[in-house]
């Protein structure tokens, strides 16, 4: 009996993993090419055929990159912007989501609709208005426009994510919190947030991805080159001559690493949430 079941189980496991491995290969292949391409020495024309391990492969491009003061500064700027925007933005989105979930039904619906409308507005339609606001506030010569999205929770989608998470907590839990004399802020901090820490982790990860990869805010609102961030810096590396493309690929690896790390950290919360 065991002899019959075991192979079927093994086959089933393999069959289940094949699509996952196929998808993994599909997504990892471009990353692998970027990584291998980043090892090619600069000053040589790009290969004309598939060249998995480049001649003279080395990590020297990474050293060259970090020897460039501009690249170092842009990487540091991106880290600083993310370090401020992600916690502040996640906090604001969490509060907004909690309000949507806990206000009386009519007010909650109004906020929900407004948030969905805000999420649907193309971000490009808001640029001129935002620039006018930054000009009136007198902050166009500062890095403040880069972290300003934190004040609206980075994206309306994050507020919706939190609203969905907090609304799924049973009403009895909130009633109990009220009976214990907890106000709205204490209920959010001591009850709702701990119960939906997974949602907060996912929202923070999304906030990081949006902030880290944001090219439009530095492109449109920064007037001082010293505050350019990594995505904008990469556009100038992309304009390097073909003989120096491996330098751009090395920068792409540096820019992608935190994203992969974030995805790796947050996948535990996603997996728990889907069980």
């Amino acid at each position: 009996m065991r002899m019959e079941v075991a192979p079927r189980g093994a086959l089933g496991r393999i069959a289940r993993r094949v699509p996952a491995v196929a998808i993994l290969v599909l997504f990892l292949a471009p990353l692998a090419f970027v990584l291998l391409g980043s090892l090619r020495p600069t000053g040589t024309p790009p290969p004309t055929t598939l060249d998995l391990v480049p001649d003279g492969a080395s990590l020297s491009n990474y050293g060259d990159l970090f020897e460039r003061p501009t690249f170092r500064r842009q990487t540091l700027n991106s880290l600083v912007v993310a370090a401020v925007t992600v916690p502040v933005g996640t906090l604001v989105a969490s509060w907004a989501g909690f309000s949507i979930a806990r206000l009386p039904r009519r007010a909650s619906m109004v906020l929900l609709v407004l948030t969905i409308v805000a999420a649907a507005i193309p971000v490009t339609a808001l640029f001129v208005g935002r620039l006018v606001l930054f000009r009136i506030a007198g902050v166009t010569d500062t890095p403040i426009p880069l972290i300003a999205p934190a004040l609206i929770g980075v994206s309306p989608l994050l507020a919706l994510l939190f609203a969905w998470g907090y609304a799924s907590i049973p009403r009895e839990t909130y009633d109990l919190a009220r009976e214990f004399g907890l106000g709205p802020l204490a209920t959010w901090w001591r009850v709702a947030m701990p119960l939906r820490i997974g949602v907060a982790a996912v929202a923070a990860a999304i906030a990081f991805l949006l902030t880290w990869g944001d090219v439009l805010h530095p492109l449109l609102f920064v007037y001082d080159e010293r505050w350019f961030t990594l995505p904008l810096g990469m556009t100038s590396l992309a304009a390097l001559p073909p003989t120096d493309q491996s330098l751009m690929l090395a920068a792409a690896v540096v820019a992608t690493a935190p994203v992969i790390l974030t995805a790796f950290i947050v996948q535990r919360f996603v997996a728990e949430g889907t069980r």
Partner: protein
Amino acid sequence: MTRRGRSVVALVLVVSVAAACDDGQDEVTRITVMVSGDPEEIEAYRAVITAFNRSQTGIDADLLPFADRDDLIVRLSTSIAGGEPPDLFLMNYRYYGQFAARDALEPVDTYLEGSEASSAGDFFGTAMTPFQWQGRQVCLPQNVSSLVVYYNADRFAEAGLPLPAEGWTWDDMVRSARALTRDDDGDGTTDVYGLGVDPEIIRLAPLIWSNGGSLVDDEAAPTRFDFDAPAVTAMQRFIDLRSLHEVTPTDEEAESEDLETRFLNDRLGMLMESRRVVPTLRTISSFGWDVAPFPGMRERVSVLHSDAYCITAGSDAKDASWRFIEFALGPDGQRITAEAGRTVPSLRSVADSDAFLEPAALPSHSEVFLDQIPRLRSVPIVSTWPEIEDVANGIIEEAYYGGGGALEVAVELTLQTRELFRRAER
């Protein structure tokens, strides 16, 4: 005085000193110069700005660089609409019309007339004219480049071909391209193509003019594309490069390895480009290369590639911006950009000097660019030209790689751009 009172006095003193320091700093006018280009080009502009800042004390210029021209245009449009434009920007004559039409530019003619450092006659007139909008000089040209042909001298010698030279024709170029196109290993795939040219209106236009053809109905006030018989003939000769002679890479090949890279890799006999590729070509060590004029059909003509500094109407430091232009386009500034290799100076004195001609550096015949200047023509200067180019390039590319007929292309170009010409301001 109580301790608290002394603290208040001290605080007032500190604030007063700080304010005095601020007043001192306010005497320095800050200006922002927006440019786009590859890193090497940006470094040349940075060197100009550094030299300018060192040359005087009252103005502090900041560079705001972008890698991509489209990025610069988006940024400029947003900042003008938002009331916070840069003081200056550098832009090609094909793209500034959209800003001139919105009265977003401060004409420079009055500054030029009152200048002791510069005069209109110092610059090549060919580059000055395209930057005149409704009779006024709105921007001042920084370079006067044009379309030329770079060639792999070793490939020409190997094939026993005469090197391209002044007076060569389109037919000469096609003959050479056919001789240079080779399938070395006999696998049915072309290993070396004779020529690389982007299928775009800016490349096609000089061929049309060289055959005596017209591009638009009225050069001064165009209202539509108007391709006459010589224009259609030239267009067909252009399309034939790929579909009949097969001397240029296919669509897929051009996508997988751009023309510049293909030339660097010794897999392209000739490359039709402007001056901008020179710094990259100077990295070539495996073969010799040089430059030849654009080969026409009946007349010798080429197309202008020129960028200019423009002052924005919203700048609150226009005088300081003009002083920067005087420096950047003066002998010192032009020498710095010329030595970077990728510009043909608009200032006659620097263009004729070793700073540009660089006898020791390739290309050996940089004078080709100067010889072409008197016979350069420019594409129409209208506010919607960037959109017209986008539409036109799509149609030309499709016909070039798909083997379309020139007459159909001419009709399609005329019809699909009619509305854009109608909306155009000039």
